[in-house]
């Protein structure tokens, strides 16, 4: 029974964030964040550097030419609101340093491709995968612990 419970917790921990992301993306009004044209006051999809040619065209360009520089819409040029300290969000702060680190080691078109690949690898594959692994290991440990304690 506990094994089933832990499986349910794991499944929920994986699907709940996906559900939240899909809901927020689906419910946000287009004029608020859906467009890809740059807005002066508010952030929208253009700030994420969404490829103007779409996902498939970008992937084809990456696979065939190894670069998709011209398809990008750019990155966020808005100044951070005074919500967090500048040493976190400023260009000279941790935010800028992180982007420079991701760009480091390459220049020109190659730099952008490596930056994109690092972004994909780190934030879509390795870090979420590592967390899923930790969660699975932790739940397995709880399962074994319950069984051992129940045996006493």
């Amino acid at each position, binding site marked *: 029974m506990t094994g089933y419970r832990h499986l349910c917790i794991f499944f929920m921990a994986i699907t709940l964030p996906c559900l939240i*992301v899909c809901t927020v993306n689906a419910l946000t009004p287009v004029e608020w964040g859906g467009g890809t044209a740059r807005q002066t006051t508010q952030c929208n999809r253009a700030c*994420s550097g*969404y*490829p103007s040619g779409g996902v498939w065209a970008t992937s084809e360009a990456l696979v065939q030419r190894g670069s998709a520089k011209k398809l990008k819409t750019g990155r966020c040029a808005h100044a951070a609101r005074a919500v*967090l300290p500048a040493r976190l969000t400023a260009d000279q702060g941790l935010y800028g340093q992180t982007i420079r680190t991701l760009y480091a080691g390459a220049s020109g078109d190659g730099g952008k491709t490596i930056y994109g690949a690092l972004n994909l690898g780190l934030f879509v594959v390795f870090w979420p995968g590592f967390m899923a692994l930790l969660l699975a290991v932790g739940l397995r440990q709880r399962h074994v612990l319950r069984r*051992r304690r129940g045996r006493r």
Partner: protein
Amino acid sequence: MCCDAAEGGDNLLQTLLTAIVAGLIWVYYQCAFFMAHLAALLDVTYRDTNAVMFFILWPTLTLGLILWVMWNQWALFRAQPRPEPSSNTPAAPS
């Protein structure tokens, strides 16, 4: 004929690779859109939501998970069944 088949295989491989890359990019941009939409909803900037997510929330959650796994490992070590100490001593003559 052979070259057509090889070209067809190459095209299939390229399409498959493109599909995998497209899937990864799609997931990445769904997450990036989420950050941009969240910024618009909370009236802050994309930069702010990114900073909160990647410098505060996500590392805290990862660290919490690591500590939880380590704690569980310690609890498992303590709950390990140990052999009875009397099992090695010979039985006393009655």
